[in-house]
């Protein structure tokens, strides 16, 4: 039975259509795997009753003309509101919150026939790069090379761990500064953050609204294309979702990239980048060249300012978005002392409900938006953001189809290794990914190699706006050349 959970979405789809397996069998196999993987702390709210009901319904409908994800068991990041199922954004301030509504993304996935196995661990409010800020405790990377437990990355750490450990066939993630791509790279899986506006944000707990996008985290590129297709499209409930057609992403996967131009940005060659990351990057460029692409050096001169701009804009938007957690309408309310008024209620509730990193970011955001500093910090960061986007616009205008970079500056590190470091050390994890959110572009992480310890490493491809199909096709070519097939040995 455990072999069933190792299937890709496309292989399971074929097996369901041929009648070789039922969704009930697939789903039961995943539920068994999940129950045996508590050591990974990936699934934090299990929904076996919902899963089996959805699986049986899919089987009853049959697979002759079935929707794209019919009968496919998935995990859902805890950031997505799911009706009647705890949706906490991994925060104590939303303890007990059971939405009365369903997010647009999960609605679309269910309409496409998908089965929900449960909710997945993450960093609190998606703020973190190691899944160590979660109110549920750390999610653990299924990859292991010694006695240490490693981070699966963050913020979508539970999603990454669950897919890499074959607990589900695919999972949803969200990405504000790298939260799909960094954990995908740390666990040897594929994840794409689509163009800003491709996927509706409605019903996803907001972190930084101008940067947040949801996307799939899957075992290969084809599965990302299939899942992204089902997640995408205009939603009247999200005014920033684009009202443009969604092309057939899977049909774009020809593997033919002859004549494509791939840019290598020189500013991404950072001092102190490990030699094996450099080699991975050079090898990836060679693979694309061998597949018929033209590889050219490009310049993104403002790239080095992306992280500081992000750490103004994202906290500023977070401080505004998280103002809604006030102990009045949902979630936690602190116990009050005699004589406490409404201000004490807010202050005690938010002090108890928010973890340390969330408090820090809300307060940094409050500071950069406060009178006297708004122009010096927030407006300046938005100007720099415009320049960062202009760098990409100019590269694409010069004929570049996609940009190749490392996904992360290192392989997965140990849980607890960064506890004593200052927050900026953790923020540096996003150095290669954060530009993509600031420019609103699609970016995909693909596993292409291993480091000397035997941990997976990934490369990132950045595409033109709305060209996820072309981007996924280039990623598909890279995947075929790299032939990354390693899996973590089961220890949990």
């Amino acid at each position: 039975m455990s072999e069933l959970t190792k299937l890709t979405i496309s292989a399971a789809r074929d097996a369901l259509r041929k009648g070789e397996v039922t969704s009930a069998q697939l789903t039961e196999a995943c539920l068994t795997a999940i129950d045996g993987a508590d050591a990974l702390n990936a699934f934090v709210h299990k929904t076996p009753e919902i899963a089996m009901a959805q699986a049986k319904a899919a089987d009853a409908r049959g697979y002759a003309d079935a929707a794209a994800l019919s009968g496919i068991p998935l995990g859902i990041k805890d950031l997505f509101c799911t009706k009647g199922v705890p949706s906490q954004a991994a925060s104590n301030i939303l303890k007990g919150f059971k939405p009365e509504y369903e997010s647009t993304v999960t609605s679309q996935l269910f309409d496409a026939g998908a089965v929900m196995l449960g909710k997945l661990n993450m960093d609190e409010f998606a703020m973190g790069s190691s899944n160590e800020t979660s109110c549920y405790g750390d999610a653990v990377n299924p990859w292991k090379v010694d006695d240490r437990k490693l981070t699966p990355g963050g913020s979508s750490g539970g999603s990454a761990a669950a897919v890499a450990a074959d607990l589900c066939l695919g999972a949803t993630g969200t990405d504000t500064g790298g939260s799909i791509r960094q954990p995908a790279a740390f666990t040897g899986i594929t994840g794409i953050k689509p163009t800003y506006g491709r996927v509706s944000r409605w019903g996803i707990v907001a972190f930084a609204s101008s940067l947040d996008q949801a996307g799939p985290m899957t075992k290969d590129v084809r599965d990302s294309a299939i899942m992204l297709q089902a997640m995408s499209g205009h939603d009247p409930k999200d005014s920033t979702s684009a009202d443009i057609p969604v092309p057939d992403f899977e049909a774009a996967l020809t593997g033919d990239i002859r004549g494509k131009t791939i840019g290598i940005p020189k500013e991404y060659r950072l001092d102190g980048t490990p030699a094996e990351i450099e080699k991975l990057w050079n090898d990836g460029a060679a693979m694309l060249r061998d597949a018929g692409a033209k590889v050219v050096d490009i310049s993104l001169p403002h790239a080095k300012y992306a992280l500081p701009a992000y750490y103004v804009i994202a906290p500023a938007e977070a401080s505004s978005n998280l103002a809604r957690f006030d102990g009045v309408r949902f979630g936690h309310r602190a116990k009050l002392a005699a004589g406490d008024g409404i201000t004490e209620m807010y202050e005690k509730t938010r002090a108890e409900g928010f973890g340390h990193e969330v408090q820090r970011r809300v307060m940094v955001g409050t500071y950069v938006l406060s009178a006297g500093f708004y122009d010096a910090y927030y407006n300046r960061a938005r100007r720099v953001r415009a320049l960062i986007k202009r760098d990409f616009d100019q590269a694409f205008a010069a004929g570049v189809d996609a940009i190749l970079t490392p996904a992360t500056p290192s392989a997965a590190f140990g849980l607890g290794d960064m506890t004593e470091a200052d927050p900026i050390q953790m923020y540096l994890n996003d150095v290669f990914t954060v530009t993509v959110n600031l420019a609103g572009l699609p970016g995909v992480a693909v596993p292409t190699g291993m480091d000397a310890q035997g941990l997976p490493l990934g490369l990132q491809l950045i595409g033109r706006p709305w060209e996820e199909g072309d981007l996924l096709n280039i990623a598909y070519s890279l995947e075929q050349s790299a032939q990354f097939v390693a899996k973590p040995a089961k220890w949990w």
Partner: protein
Amino acid sequence: MSIDEGTARRVAKLARIKVEEEALPALAAEFSAILGFIEQLNEVDVDGIEPMTSVTPQRLKRREDVVTDGSQQAAVLANAPDAREGFFAVPKVVE
């Protein structure tokens, strides 16, 4: 820029997060480190560059000004920590 304890106290108040007095020095030091990192932005020449308002040039869609939802009092109140007689209940706001 270095953030002092008074500024940290003021920011915590603005953010409506209770921070104990003894935690303020460490918080101020963290803010100083983060703001020091952000200071790099001062190196960038942003003359003549407008602050970005939307990453994708777009005009927000409008819809008909009609009622599309409502009459869901029970659902709206279902997750409230304290709801009474069809309302959210909070501590006394005015004396």
